[in-house]
């Protein structure tokens, strides 16, 4: 069966001031199936957000998606779509929710108008029908008293409610895929839990696929079926979430787990990764994690491919799999 979304060798390039080219997303491949949640996990600058933007052809200028990349939605390559056809996909078949709802919402339009706008962009319905649909959507995302909130402006809403409005807008055209880029990072932890539950419920009820982009391993646990860990523009580990949590195969992933303080169990000293994430202009030629890796050896001077560490479990590390 054709996967819902298939990304092969996605590369995003930006011209560099010195005349060269950098690739903040450098050969990313993954598959997203209907009704499932795939998480892209990594620290700032790893390319996870840019990957999400590239899928919708929203890479900020002067960056561009390289022509050799393949982005197939139900087998159709989005790379070959013209801008008009892309507009249908964007917000239509693929919806998007960003971290900061305040900057994505229009401050001078009511919540209802913005959701109705989303409804009418993809369906020819009257303004009043669109508003009725908006009210139903607000109810669906768990906003109490949607009839009243419909007529309120973003500044009158709390952070959690704004994010619910953003989700309603993304849902307005009944997308098959929802890209959620750090959807709860700006929210308080008790509100974050509400939004994550909501996304999970919507996925189940609508059979939607979710691409969850986050820096937080805690958000991934128990929410995502599968995950890709990204580092320096590349996927360094790809497997089911359970496999990654039970036996992380890449030293970077293990480093992330060692860095996260826990709320239960014995309190132990953290084992951080040394150094910091290098900018794209300073990525090493071989394995990009090698300079920070406690397990590096001579072979790491050349770049490993994403290879099988276990069945269904790939890692971009020379130590992964049977050749180790």
């Amino acid at each position, binding site marked *: 069966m054709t996967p819902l979304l298939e990304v092969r060798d996605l590369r995003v390039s930006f011209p560099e001031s010195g005349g060269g080219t950098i690739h903040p997303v450098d050969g990313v491949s993954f598959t997203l199936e209907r009704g499932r949640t795939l998480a892209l996990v990594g620290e700032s600058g790893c390319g996870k957000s840019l990957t999400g933007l590239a899928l919708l052809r929203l890479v900020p200028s002067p960056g561009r998606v390289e022509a050799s990349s393949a982005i197939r939605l139900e087998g159709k390559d989005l790379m070959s779509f013209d801008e008009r056809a892309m507009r249908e996909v964007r917000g239509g078949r693929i919806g998007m929710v960003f971290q900061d709802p305040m900057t994505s919402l229009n401050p001078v339009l009511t919540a209802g108008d913005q959701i109705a706008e989303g409804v009418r962009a993809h369906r020819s319905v009257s303004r009043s029908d669109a508003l009725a649909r908006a009210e139903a959507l607000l109810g669906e995302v768990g906003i109490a008293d949607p009839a009243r909130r419909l007529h309120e402006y973003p500044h009158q809403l*709390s952070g959690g409610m704004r994010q619910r409005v953003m989700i309603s807008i993304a849902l307005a055209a009944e997308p098959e895929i929802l890209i959620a880029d750090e959807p709860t990072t700006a929210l308080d932890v008790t509100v974050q*839990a509400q939004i994550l539950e909501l996304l999970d419920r919507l996925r189940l009820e609508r059979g939607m696929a979710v691409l969850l982009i986050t820096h937080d391993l805690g958000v991934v646990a128990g929410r995502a079926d599968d995950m890709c860990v990204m580092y320096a523009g590349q996927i360094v580990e790809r497997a089911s979430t359970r496999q990654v949590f039970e036996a992380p195969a890449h030293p970077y992933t293990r480093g992330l787990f060692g*860095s996260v303080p*826990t709320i239960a169990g014995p309190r132990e000293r953290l084992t951080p990764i040394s150094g910091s994430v290098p900018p794209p202009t300073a990525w090493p030629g071989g394995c990009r994690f090698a300079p920070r890796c406690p397990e590096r050896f001579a072979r790491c001077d050349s770049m490993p491919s994403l290879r099988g560490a276990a069945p269904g479990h790939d890692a971009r590390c020379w130590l992964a799999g049977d050749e180790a």
Partner: protein
Amino acid sequence: MTAPAGAAPLLEVRDLVKHYRARAMLGRSSPPVRAVDGVSLTLGRGQTLGLVGESGCGKTTVGRTIIRLQEPTSGRALLDGTDIFALGPDALRAFRRRVQMIFQDPYGSLNPRMTVGDAIAEGMDIHHIGTRPQRRGRVATLLEEVGLDASYASRYPHEFSGGQRQRIGIARALAVEPELIICDEPVSSLDVSVQAQVLNLLSDLQRARRLSYLFIAHDLAVVRQVADRIAVMYLGRIVETGAADRVLSSPRHPYTVALRSAVPEASMAPAAGRIVLSGDPPSPAAPPPGCAFHTRCFHPKRDERCRTERPELRPLGGVQVACHHAESTP
């Protein structure tokens, strides 16, 4: 880990109140914002007190009031028994040597036109510590102590990453040899791998220098990593406080229970009975009467009393908790 019985605490805060006057509109004055509404804290020497809560709970205001960046509405704060709020200009300068602060955004707190070395030395200049060459040498030592290269002294803040800037902020705070550092969300803008480095650094410095920390953060797991004791704030008041392990292993206040349950744990172990609170925290300009948490509370025994009578902190099972029904918290 705990202070010897009977030893005077380094910092003692009693009934701290900070209300902000809202601007009068159309001749009518609106009610004040009760940012901090009667907070008491105790911090022992060499210890870390984690002050935890969500945005708007007043935790940052507590820190800023203690260090006199803001004036309190009422209440007392004692450093070694001396009333901080009564200090005159000279005494305040001496106080600032003993108490320093580290902020969330290290970039915002460093002057972009000042070299890192000058920024670190500034406190020593103000307090006339050492000769000029001595201060230079001291800057180099401090940079190395926080894990940076001594040669960085001649560079500018924009040349550094977020984690390096936070190390610079820590070196700057250490320069005047303080006893107490108020850390306000010191790692919340850092990537996890760097966050772990800074948390370990703070622990190492504490041990080496017998520092005391008031560690203000929204992240319960981060607070657990560093704190001996924890105080949980909700809408300007402390709802539960006690030994960190105790408060987190068997929380008695329903808000602490919910906060702990909402922490996304990086583990596949099933989250037993996750509690998802409904709604948002109410505005501190109009806190609910009675127990401020009653509008979101899930305690099976919540009743009329919760809506009318404000619960005070009371001892229960080794912690202090402000809930009428803490004995039967699920």
